[in-house]
């Protein structure tokens, strides 16, 4: 929040994305029905998730791919490092994948002597800067072109001008070499079509295509909830995903990858591996955060969230920021991890409105708050304060007493019809805002006492 550039960049970026999304759906009357349909497909798929995953696995294997099962991030890292070692890989090129961020894959690859290279321009930038992404769709949104130029000059040992075109060209050249040399390509998966054993990657730069065509081995890491039953279902999601994320009708590249290369093909990996990731997802199938399993990782909720727009992604402290990020963090790290984050929301509901699959994020935030309270994870002074409040609101006698006490307490600070600065809890409010004083007579007191009001 202190960083003025970050603030301005966030405002400009989120405002732009909001506008683009609105325009895209304004010219798309079928959009609302498709959103309902997408939501239904996700729910129905969850109702039979085991069956669809079995179909997916059978098809991936039929096409010559291998499927692996990772209950935890640690298992996923171990599986992927193992694949890399067996392949004798020295370098891995990575297409943008939140799942690989979530499992902290890069450190594990480095430790195993496999150099991970991020190839999505935004991810490449933050990798060079040793930072984490600040937005799901635009990970380097917090960096100025000047900062990127400095970064390239320093890390790539070549002069770089602070011009996006020039910087992009440099990145293209550097990464082209990597694509051609890498032994291992690692991606996530936006969707997996069970019926055909197809992994779907949605990108704009072309790195998804590179990573899945040029290296000898391709590993796709995917949360179990990403499976969709058929190609017909897939089209429903493709019709709304890019629109929700960036306002585009489709992203530049939608790549359908169906196993390793086939006979007669010049290119494509020799080996294809699909790593299915649990990481807290399975427990939510019958859990309070089940709805969050529908998330398409489009970022639309981030763009409209007044809190995210103010504080940016890093402030959330975990892999996934923004409204959905709080729910995903609870899913993956446990409820205690979101003791405070669950309150980083004014419950305004803009996220639920913007979500392409209509996830009711505010409702689940309230549920998380409830769990935090029920499990006594919340801090005791706060719990005490709310229990006291509950008593006041349940007993009119106490309520009236509190009002009388309040009037006395506020005398020293209520001047000129308003309350200026006060200490403690309300001090937080009054640093930037006035407070109205408790009325000399509450409405109910006036109603009881003023005959003309009653008549």
């Amino acid at each position: 929040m202190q960083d003025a550039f970050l603030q301005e960049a966030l405002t400009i970026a989120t405002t732009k994305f909001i506008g683009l999304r609105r325009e895209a759906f304004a010219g798309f009357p079928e959009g609302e029905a498709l959103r309902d349909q997408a939501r239904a497909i996700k729910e129905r798929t969850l109702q039979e998730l085991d069956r669809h995953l079995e179909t997916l696995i059978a098809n991936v294997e039929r096409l010559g791919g291998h499927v692996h099962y990772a209950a935890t991030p640690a298992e996923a890292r171990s599986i992927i490092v193992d694949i890399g070692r067996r392949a004798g890989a020295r370098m891995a090129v990575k297409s943008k994948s939140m799942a690989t961020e979530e499992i902290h894959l890069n450190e594990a690859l480095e430790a195993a002597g496999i150099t991970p290279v991020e190839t999505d321009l935004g991810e490449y930038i933050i990798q060079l800067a040793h930072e984490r992404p600040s937005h799901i769709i635009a990970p380097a949104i917090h960096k100025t072109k000047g900062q990127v130029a400095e970064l390239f000059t320093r890390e790539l040992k070549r002069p770089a001008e602070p011009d996006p075109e020039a910087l992009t060209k440099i990145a293209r050249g550097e990464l082209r070499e990597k694509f051609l040399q890498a032994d291992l390509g690692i991606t996530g998966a936006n969707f997996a079509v069970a019926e055909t054993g197809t992994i779907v990657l949605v990108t704009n730069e072309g790195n998804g295509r590179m990573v899945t065509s040029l290296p000898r081995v391709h590993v796709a890491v995917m949360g179990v909830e990403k499976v969709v039953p058929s190609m017909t279902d897939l089209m429903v999601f493709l019709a709304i995903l890019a629109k929700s994320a960036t306002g585009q009708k489709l992203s530049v590249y939608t790549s359908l990858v169906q196993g390793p290369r086939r006979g007669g093909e010049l290119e494509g990996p020799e080996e294809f591996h699909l790593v299915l990731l649990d990481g807290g997802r399975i427990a939510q199938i019958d859990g309070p955060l089940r709805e969050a399993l529908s998330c398409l990782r489009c970022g639309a909720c981030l763009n409209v969230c007044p809190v995210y727009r103010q504080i940016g992604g890093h402030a959330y402290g975990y892999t996934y920021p923004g409204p959905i990020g709080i729910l995903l963090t609870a899913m993956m790290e446990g409820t205690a991890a979101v003791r405070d984050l669950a309150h980083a929301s004014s419950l305004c509901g803009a996220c639920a409105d913007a979500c392409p699959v209509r996830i009711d994020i505010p409702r689940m935030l309230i549920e998380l708050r409830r769990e935090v309270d029920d499990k006594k994870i919340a801090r005791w002074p706060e719990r005490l304060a709310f229990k006291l409040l509950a008593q006041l609101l349940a007993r009119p006698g106490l309520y009236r007493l509190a009002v009388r006490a309040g009037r006395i307490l506020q005398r020293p600070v209520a001047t000129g019809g308003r309350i200026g600065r006060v200490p403690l809890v309300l001090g937080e409010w009054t640093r930037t805002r006035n407070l109205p004083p408790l009325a000399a007579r509450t409405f109910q007191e006036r109603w009881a006492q003023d005959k003309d009001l009653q008549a």
Partner: protein
Amino acid sequence: MTGRRASLMVTCLGDLFFPDVGVSIVRVLRKLGVAVDVPTDQTCCGLPLFNSGYHAEAAAVARRTLALFRDSEHVVVPSGSCAWMVKHEYPGLLAGAGLAREAEHLAACTHELSQFLVRVLGARQFTSAVRGRITYHDSCHLLRGLHESESPRTLLGNLKGAELVPLPGADECCGFGGSFAVRLPEVSSQILAKKLANVEATGADCLVACDAGCLMQMGGGLTRKKSRVRALHLAELLDGDR
């Protein structure tokens, strides 16, 4: 004139901090021929407890409130958030106590003020208590919870003596969010600052909202800035014929 009866659910913030709003509502409704009563010993709909996750406590308060309004023909609420609480959350919250049916009934009879005036009574024309330019902020629960953005604008647009100008980002949160305002006060204040910048840019004399929480937040910011813009509740503007 209309032969209707309405019970006023004044809300905790309304009762304690904005009693004039309640008075204006009584006057406005009476002029329309509605007989108004105010069930005694109201406290709160329970939303502050509910939003912070204290659901058992919220249910206890809700149960009390349900009992107070059991015999009401219509319940009028000067707050989108409280009306939303009663209409959307009471049935689920009180199902455990076997009160789902009563809660559904109350939900069906409960209306936020602007909805009651426009959609139930069909009353649209009022004389403004404040002359000059006015601008309207959509409070989140009214807009997204109750899907209501038209009724307040209909009332404000038709006001004799006042000119309604649009507020850029009217549908953006003011930063109140209940306890959010004191849990994350800096973020809440910065969100508020954006809202107030939009408000002052309209050149309006008066900012109108249908929620006491929003009015505390925005009004508190405006008076701290010594702005010439006044923050008022819809009811106060409609109470122009004195």
